[in-house]
């Protein structure tokens, strides 16, 4: 199961300030742990919303709104993509992240093909095996 972890922005991240060395060290260690456990597929930080933009859709009209945006609680400062066996495993990993100060980190499951109800029958599985041989080239 694939999960996305959304890290909200803060006044500091919005001001373009790098986190403290201490937090960076803790975060690097945490990221290493995620990688060495085969959990982290991707993870990136985002520039402040001052460099971003929003496009509002209304009928055929498109309105571009330049950053920065103010509702800082809803702003995203970074994300991870994780591969875990269960929602519980993802939560266990998230609990180990070095956050503090009442910040809330959101965990969301990413849609996968099987979520669209693709039923795998035994015949299909058998067929898959042949396919793999053929698809070798």
């Amino acid at each position, binding site marked *: 199961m694939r999960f996305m972890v959304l890290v909200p922005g803060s006044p500091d991240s919005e001001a373009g300030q790098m986190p403290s060395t201490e937090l960076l060290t803790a975060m690097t260690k945490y990221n290493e742990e995620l990688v060495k456990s085969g959990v982290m597929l991707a993870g990136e930080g985002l520039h402040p919303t001052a460099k971003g933009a929003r496009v509002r859709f209304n009928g055929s009209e498109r309105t571009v709104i330049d950053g920065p945006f103010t509702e800082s609680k809803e702003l995203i400062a970074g994300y991870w993509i994780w591969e875990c066996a269960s929602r519980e495993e993802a939560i266990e990993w998230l609990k180990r992240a070095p956050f503090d100060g009442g910040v809330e980190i959101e965990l969301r499951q990413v849609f996968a093909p099987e979520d669209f109800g693709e039923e795998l029958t035994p015949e299909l*599985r058998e*067929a898959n095996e*042949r396919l793999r041989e053929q698809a070798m080239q």
Partner: protein
Amino acid sequence: MTPSATHRAIEAVWRIESARLIAGLTRTVRDVAVAEDLAQDALLAALEQWPHSGIPERPGAWLMTTARRRGIDALRRRRTLERKHELIGRELEALQQLDRPELLPMAEEVEDDLLRLIFMTCHPVLSREARVALTLRLLGGLTTPEIARAFLVSEGTLAQRIVRAKRTLGEARVPFEVPASDELAERVSAVLEVIYLVFNEGYAATAGEDWIRPALCAEALRLARILGALMPREAEVLGLLALMELQAARLPARVGPLGEPVLLADQDRSRWDRLLLRRGLAALEQARALGGTLGPYGLQAAIAACHAEAGSVEETDWPRIVALYDGLAALTGSPVVELNRAVAVTMAFGPEAGLEIVDSLTEEPALNGYHLLGSVRGDILARLGRRAEARREFERAADMCANDRERALLLERAICCAPA
């Protein structure tokens, strides 16, 4: 938390911690069977206590401390029974020394222990089946019923296989260590073989019909990712990781709406998993950056990468794929690789050149009765306009093919070659 929610949370903690726990305990007690028993004891203690006390802040450390205390208790009991047993005395001393939270191993030590454990469960002294079962059990944290289900053997058989494997390791005095450099390459390839076997078992789905199959794929990928992070200077480790990421990326496109297999040439490439493709290409790049020549896994990954980077069959860099197959054939000498090379040569340089290779393989004993030989030859003959021969070839291939769906496909192709 409800009891069942706590239970699921404990399972999650176990999945995260068990391999490291068993690895750390094996270093202390020098016996993987004893180490696993202690880890299981700790799990039982967690299942008893955590529903009331809640999950501790550092569950891994809790499990390790508990396992060590259980170990000390067990050894004390045994010591009173066999007073003079010097070995037990030493074990006890080692355990007692470690029963101090400040002595919990550092992250690097844990990683080394994990590597040692991988080399142990994939040790050549064990049969292939035993390596697979033990690796999934000790490193994957899968239960015996889960593994038994995945490989379609009874739980009893599998449990026995695991017990025997652990005994063999003990009897052969297999050391808990990362192999020395002179045997490292060989031992790494034994580990990679186990991981790829597990992956293919899930990917190919030889049989079985439930969730455990895709779970095997995911488990193998996880092991490869862990190994890639622990051994970032081993080109073949990265090569296999790249190959598996790239193959996994194609999974969503491998099956059509009616459940029929979709060949690479016909796959809707927009359904390939972009994130996994990117990861596969990055791992391959990392392997190349190490500077040596690519090994068999690296070369297969490079071939998969050629497909990954192409928007369609026509845009594929076939001459490059031929060159990679040349390298792979030289390394492996495998007739199946040679047959695949013939397909690539056909695409790159035309069917005459491909036919020459295929015709050199018809006497190959290893391909005797292998329907894909006929299927490939039929395809090349059809491209050359030699329809009657192509038809016979497809029909022969259909006769040899054990799979209904695929046989139907071959017969369909035979009919297409019939005179108008």
